[in-house]
Each structure stands twice: as C-alpha cells, then as structure tokens.
C-alpha cells in the first residue's frame, strides 16, 4: 500500500511540475502548427532552446526580467522567419526536415566550446546565475505550503479510509466528467439526428467545470503535496507556470475560433484551394509558425525556471515527446495539448516507478527502468496513431476524410 501511495505521489508531483507546464505551453504552440495549420514543425525544441538561452543569458547580464522575456521571444520570432522563408513555399516534408535540422544546429551552436562564456558550452548555464531575478518577484512569502491545506490528515486523524474516500471522489469525478463531456460533444454535433440529450450547452459546461474542480480538490485532499512557498522550485514557479498555461490556452482559443483560425484550417486542408480563393497561404503559414514558435519559446523559458539551461535537455526528444502528448490529448482541440502533456508525463513516471518498485533489480536496473519507460512511450505513440489517431478529445468523424 505504501509503495502504491509513494508511486502515486511521484506521479502527481510530476503532473504539476513546472517542467510539465513548460512542455504543455510548447505543445499548445505545436498544436497551432500541426493541429490547426498542418505544418510539420519538428523543431519545436529549437524554439524552446532559443527562448531559454535568450531569457537566461539576458538575466545573467543583468537585463531586467520583462526585457529578458522579450529577448527570448524575439529570438524565436527571428528563428521562425529564417525557417519559414525558404520552406513554407515548399511541400510539407521539407519543413519537417529543415526544422529538425535547424533545431539541432541551435543545439550544436549552444554546445560550442568557443561560446562557453555566453552559453556555458555543453554544461549549459547554472540555474542560480539567472533564477534569482524571477524568484525574488515572489509575493508568496517564506515557509512551506501544502496543497490542499485542508486534507485527509485533518479529518479523523488522517485515517486510511478518509484518504481512500478522497480518492474515490476523485475517480467518480473523472468518470462523471467523461460522461458529461461525451454528452456535450454529442449535443454540440449538429449533424446528429439522434435525440438530443437533456444537457444543454451552458448547463453542461458549468457542470463539467464544477466536476473538474471538485475532482482536483479531491485528488489533492487524498494526496497532498508540499513545497516551499517561494524559492527555486516551490509553489511560486508552479503558480506562474500553470497560469501561463491557462493564458496560452485562452489565447489559442480566441485565435482559432476567429476567421483567422478558419484560414489556418483551410491551409491545412488544401493550400491550392486557398490560393484559388485569393488567400496568401505563405503569410498565413508564416503567422502560424511565428505564433506557435513564440509559445515554444515561452515554454522554453518556463522550462529553465526551475532547472538549468542544458542544450541536450532540449533536444529533439522533447519535440518527439511534444508530438506524443499532442496526439494523446487530441490535435486541433483546445484542451488537448494540456491534457495530453499532463497524462504523458504522469504515465511515464507511473511506468518507471512501478517498474522500480516491483521489477527486481536483477531483471531491470534503475537505469533500465528509465529506458523501459521510454520504450513504452515510443510504442504507445505508434499504437496511439494507429488506433486512436484523434486522441482523447479529438473528433473521430473528422479523421475519416483524411487526405
């Protein structure tokens, strides 16, 4: 039992970690590229790395934080232009090859020993050299804080059954959210002639939101986590990271519901048709590449807030993980990127920790459990694309008209 609780605790910590939030932001950008515009950007890690370098190097040189953020974003902006100009007029595969190459070039350059003074070479930039500017902004105060502050330990002396009850409520909420979500989707589908379910739009949405909130509370009620309020790896950085995730989601929502979002989808479906309708396809793709890339850079900055700037940590693996997360959540959906990323990282930790706990060391060493979890991730990506290409939130019907 204790092992299970420990594993679950590790999973929850991973799920809410700043790293997960950072990748979620990058995946939100990738969703704009791949999900909505159909751009095969395999260099999202390059955008992240540029954002991280621009941000950290600026801070190391005592440039004020807002300006440092702008410098990180500016680098990604220029990178998007440089990538886009030669490739966006060409077939999709070229963009894939050029973006993945360019991201690798960034990494190589970052590792160069000649640039050691600037980028720290292969070792990268130590967190403590740039993090204070951000950490000092915290108004959360000192000391530690537990989420949720009122949890199972406050009821009946922290008895096991209280905890189990909290867990049960969480599971019930997840199931109920899924049911409500499905009904909402069905009700929103105008082509379905089947009798509409009783849930109308707003009521269902409110109910779903309440269920999500209650479920989250129940989760942290049963599995409270404690971190320092401020500090390098505390609640402050988590709060900022997840607020940025929420804001990014909102911005993308506002963008894609507009006629501009319709342009993106049109370009995804058929560029020549869009040209014949008088649309400047190149400009549309460029705008998408830039906006999605800016999200990538923002993700990169968040990524290094609670760790170090390490060129190899932001290599192409991160891009591939991003694709897995995106496809898991559902491409071309609003919440898919966040849901997918959280589930992806949680699942990997769940696999790794379970293997560590229950597979004897003689069969699988600690190192091997890590590798095992990645093998599972790779295989999962393959299975996902084949058996549920629309992901968790995507629309299956849409995929039937694949071109």
């Amino acid at each position: 039992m204790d092992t299970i609780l420990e594993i679950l605790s590790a999973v929850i910590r991973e799920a809410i970690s700043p790293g997960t939030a950072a990748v979620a932001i990058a995946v939100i950008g990738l969703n704009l590229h791949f999900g909505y515009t159909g751009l095969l950007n395999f260099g999202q890690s390059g955008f992240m790395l540029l954002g991280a370098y621009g941000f950290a190097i600026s801070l190391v040189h005592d440039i004020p934080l807002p300006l440092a953020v702008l410098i990180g974003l500016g680098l990604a902006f220029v990178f998007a232009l440089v990538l886009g100009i030669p490739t966006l007029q060409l077939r999709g595969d070229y963009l894939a090859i050029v973006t993945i190459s360019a991201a690798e070039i960034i990494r190589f350059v970052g590792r160069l020993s000649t640039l050691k003074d600037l980028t720290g070479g292969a070792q990268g930039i130590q967190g403590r050299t740039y993090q204070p500017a951000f950490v000092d902004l915290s108004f959360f105060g000192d000391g530690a804080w537990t989420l949720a502050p009122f949890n199972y330990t406050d009821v009946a002396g922290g008895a096991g059954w209280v905890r189990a009850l909290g867990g049960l409520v969480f599971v019930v909420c997840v199931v109920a959210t899924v049911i409500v979500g499905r009904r909402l989707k069905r009700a929103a589908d105008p082509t379905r002639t089947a009798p509409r379910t009783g849930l109308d739009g707003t009521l269902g949405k409110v109910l779903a939101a309440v269920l999500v909130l209650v479920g989250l509370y129940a989760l942290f009620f049963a599995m409270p986590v404690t971190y320092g309020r401020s500090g390098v790896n505390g609640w402050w950085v988590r709060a900022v990271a997840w607020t940025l995730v929420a804001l990014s989601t909102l911005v993308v929502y506002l963008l894609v519901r507009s006629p501009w979002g319709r342009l993106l989808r049109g370009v995804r479906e058929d560029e020549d048709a869009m040209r014949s309708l008088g649309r400047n396809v190149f400009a549309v793709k460029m705008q998408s590449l830039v906006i999605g890339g800016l999200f990538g850079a923002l993700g990169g900055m968040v990524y290094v807030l609670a760790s170090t700037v390490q060129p190899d940590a932001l290599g192409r693996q991160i891009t591939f993980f991003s694709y897995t997360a995106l496809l898991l959540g559902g491409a071309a959906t609003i919440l898919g990127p966040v849901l997918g990323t959280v589930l992806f990282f949680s699942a990997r930790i769940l696999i790794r920790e379970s293997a560590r706990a229950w597979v004897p060391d003689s069969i699988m060493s600690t190192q091997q459990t890590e590798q095992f979890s990645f093998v599972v991730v790779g295989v999962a990506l393959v299975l996902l694309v084949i058996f549920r290409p629309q992901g968790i939130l995507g629309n299956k019907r849409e995929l039937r008209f694949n071109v």
Partner: protein
Amino acid sequence: MSETTIGTPSLADPAARRALMAGVTPEPGAAKQDPILKVDKIERRFGGITAVDVEHLEVQRGIITALIGPNGAGKTTFFNLITGFDKPSSAGSGAHWEFDGRALNKTSASSVAKAGMVRTFQLTKSLNRMTVLDNMMLGAQDQSGENLLKSVFKPLWSGQEKAVEEKAKELLARFKLLEKKDDYAGSLSGGQRKLLEMARALMSDPKMIMLDEPMAGVNPALTQSLLGHIQSLRDEGMTVLFVEHDMHVVRHISDWVVVMAEGRVVAEGPADTVMSNQAVIDAYLGAHHDTDLGDDQVLTDRALEQIEAEVRADEAAHKAAAHDGDHAKHDQQGDKS
C-alpha cells in the same frame, strides 16, 4: 459589382450574344469586341514536351466560352498558367497576359483571385475536414477577422461574419446544399463537391470564373442543374470560361468555343460551326479516332429538343432564385461603400 462594369445586361438574351460574336472572325487568336482576358505568347514546356504554346487569345466579356480539346491538349496547364499556379517557360521573353486591363504576368495565384478571376480545379479541392459552411465562408474576400491582430477581439468581426454567413447560406440554398451546411465537406459526394467548389468560388463575386471540367463525374441530373447555374451566372453578367469534354454540353451552353490541341489554339468559333472545322477534326482524330464530336447521329434532334426544354425550365427556376441573390449582392455592396 456586375452590371455597371460588365457589358450590357441584354447579354442574357441569346440573340444579343449571337450578334455580339457575329462580328468576330472564327479563327485562332481572333480579336473580340470587349475582351476581359488577353493572352500573348504564353508557352510552357515540361522537359521535352510543350504542354502549352498559345500565340494570342482573347476571351469576350459577359459570355460563356468553352475551352475544348483532346486529353493532354494543355487546357489545365493553360488554366494553371493564367491563374498564377504555374509559371510559363516563356516568362521574360514576351509572355504577357492581362485581365480586365491589368497585367497578371507576375501576379501570384492569390492575387489573381483577388483581382476577380477565380478558378475551380479538375480534381475537386474541397476542404474535407471543414464543414460545408466553413468552406463557403472562406470564399468571401476582405474579412477583417482574418487579420491576426483583430481576430482576438470578436466584436471587431462578428458583424461581418454574420453577413458572410447569410450570403453563404443563400448561395448554398441556390446550389441545393443548404441542408448539408454542417456536414464535413469530405462527406459529400463527388458531384456535390463540384457544386460546393463552384459555390465557394462565387462567394468572392468574381468578374470571371474559370471552371476546369465542372461536369466530370457528375451524374446527368446534376449536370442539368449545373448547366443551369452556369447560364444564370452569365445572365447575371459574369464571364465564364470552362473546360469540357462532352460536346453536347458545349453545344448547349457555350456562346463561343476555343479548341486546343497539343498546346496550341487550333480553332475558335461558335459551337455549331467549330465542330466541322477541319483543324478540329484533325486534332481529335489525331488523338482519338473514336471521339464523339457531338455528332447529330448520336444526338437526335428530338433528344436535343427535349434537353433544351429541360434546360430552359431549369433556367427559369434558377433565374427566380438568382433574382433574390442579386438583391443580396446589391445590399452587400451598399454595406461596403
């Protein structure tokens, strides 16, 4: 946008059209009274073969011109060239074409469409994973909500969005696709997609519409209604240039026929005389001995009359619909100015 700039409204009258074209000598490259499109020295080679080699061609404003020719004659390539989807090999050495008085040699495909020359494709290009209505709404030009900065603020574009949606629904109703508006375009039948592509092209109120084999793969009943649509477009003042293989269809609706073979324009003229032109027969016989040139042996006079009657009936029905559509168009114009 239409009546004032384009010809006289009387072009809806067959006699007026005949009179208009009577003065034109039926020979390749003949000058027209009021050409909307003029093409000079346009040539396109693919490796060894010359797909298009047109010395001079004019397309008369306000009528239906058919572009015919055996397979591989270069019709699609010609479309691609003048709509900016392909570049002539002769670029820089005399290739020149202008639309409505504006040179288009160096214009991108999207700018060509913005200039008022909209095309459809031989292989239909519907936006499959978008709804029929979304497909239509992408046809409308100058939407402020397509500006990246404005798109985030809904009040800035919601008004225009509603107007565009209304217009799209009207056109869909006219093309009998309204009940499909929330379906994915990918779920439509081939014929319906052809209709959708045409309707979508019309959303931009083009001056000239170019249709590449609009009837291919469409069932005969639908062909009838498509023909009706094309004729009513002309009657509203639009110029139509279309590629078609079925000579019966060409005879029925085109006011002028241009024949291409091996990349060249080999003949021009009214539908009934051009078929007997020796160059045309050679072109077709050279390519396909068994091509049916719409010979009366196949299509008896009785059958002809019957189809004609049907087409007329259809036309009448659509004219009524088109009339309503016209009002909407004028209203829109009022909004803009």
